[in-house]
């Protein structure tokens, strides 16, 4: 359908206003919101993600595509809510205790939102108890933990251990990331997934749920 292609294309171009207009136009034409989401918005974001991995597009282009996604989602959200569909997986995201790095985490948050995930960002220097509170309050599908320091990555393990102690480990998938973190470390501490960049993180989050 032409309008869906136009949405996908406008999203890839980062043209937020046009994405919003075209999403509205599609609704007026009677296209279902879930169809607009999957065959328009998410299709465009998927193409951006693939091109990013292939070094054909770069971080600023991913960010403006994610912003355009928001404009589209804002048009769809009220209608999706009315239909009672729970459309997106929810992620609680934060940087662990003792670590103040925020750029990587923010980038992951933006791309996740741009991939249709609902993101609750609990900030930087987050104590494990605060993560537990956030899980009880927001009931996310995924907990994403960022750490940029070799001295704080051990806190990712602390959070996982606390989840086990609180009996919450089965309720949530745990993803970890950050410069010193490796696939091996992810296995060592019993996390469910590790990603090297924001786009991979968003893809992994969608895969885990």
């Amino acid at each position: 359908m032409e309008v869906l292609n136009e949405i996908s294309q406008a999203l890839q171009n980062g043209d937020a206003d046009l994405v919003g207009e075209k999403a509205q136009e599609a609704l007026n034409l009677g296209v279902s919101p879930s169809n607009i989401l999957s065959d328009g918005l998410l299709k465009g974001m998927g193409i951006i993600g693939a091109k990013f991995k292939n070094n054909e597009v770069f971080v600023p282009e991913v960010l403006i595509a994610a912003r355009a996604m928001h404009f589209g989602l804002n048009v769809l959200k009220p209608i999706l809510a009315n239909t009672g569909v729970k459309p997106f997986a929810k992620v609680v995201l934060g940087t662990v205790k003792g670590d103040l790095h925020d750029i990587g985490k923010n980038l992951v948050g933006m791309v996740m939102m741009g991939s249709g995930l609902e993101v609750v960002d609990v900030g930087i220097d987050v104590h494990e108890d605060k993560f537990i509170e956030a899980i009880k309050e927001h009931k996310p599908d995924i907990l994403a933990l960022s750490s940029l320091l070799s001295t704080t990555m051990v806190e990712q393990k602390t959070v996982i251990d606390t989840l086990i102690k609180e009996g919450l480990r089965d309720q949530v998938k745990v993803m970890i990331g950050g410069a010193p973190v490796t696939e091996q470390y992810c296995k060592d501490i019993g996390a469910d997934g590790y990603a090297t960049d924001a786009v991979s993180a968003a893809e992994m989050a969608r895969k885990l749920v």
Partner: protein
Amino acid sequence: MLIVGELINSSRSMIKDALEKMDSTLIQEIAQKQVEAGAHYIDVNCGTQVYNEPEIMAWLVKVIQDKVSAPLCIDSPNPKVLKAGLSSINNNYQPMVNSITAEAKKFSEVIPLVVEYKVKVIALCMDDSGMPKTTEDRLRIADRLVNDLVSAGVKEDDIHLDPLVQPVSFDSQAGVAVLETLLKLKEQYPRVHKICGLSNVSFGLPTRKIINQTFMIQTMTAGMDSYILDPLDKKMMGFIYASQALLGKDDFCMNYIAVHRKGLYTE
């Protein structure tokens, strides 16, 4: 101008492999090459060795010293690792520590080492409220760092303030915030040095080397006088010497001419 050679860092796969095999020859070779290429300090970072970072740091320091006569920059967020590195140094050069910050806990843990070992110290402009975003954030934290370091007995000449360079791909104002900070710091603390790494700024962009080189020239013009970089990058080093000459920091352009004679500018 002070160049800290950044290549001995375990986040680089070549170094990580060398550490796993305890390959001292490769480590020594890289240290030697950096000094020959004009590095004044050799940065030593083994941050990926999460389970035995202090031991590996001590080993690295010993191995490098056995071969190379140069001052070392001990690089870790962990005070125990800094201590392990500093206490293993037995040459007569003044070491450098990378890094201290204005975070209360971090500052109190690292300052005794800075004082005890009389080191040069890289002071990152971040505090307990997080990473700086604006010029004002950076200046406020820099002010506190300089005051606290000087009160603890550190000489201004031994302080290298790092304004924290962030990716311009993420925030279009990230580069200019650093340049504005440098201009202000030059007025407020003319005797305090300013240092930064050059790769953060280009994160997320294509052809990163061009951004890194351009940012080096811009920051040096605004008052940066030390860098953490890859001294084997001939293009970057070539621009450093040329910039120094053009900024009046190279009497009679003798350094520039010398590196030309050594072949720095031949492809």
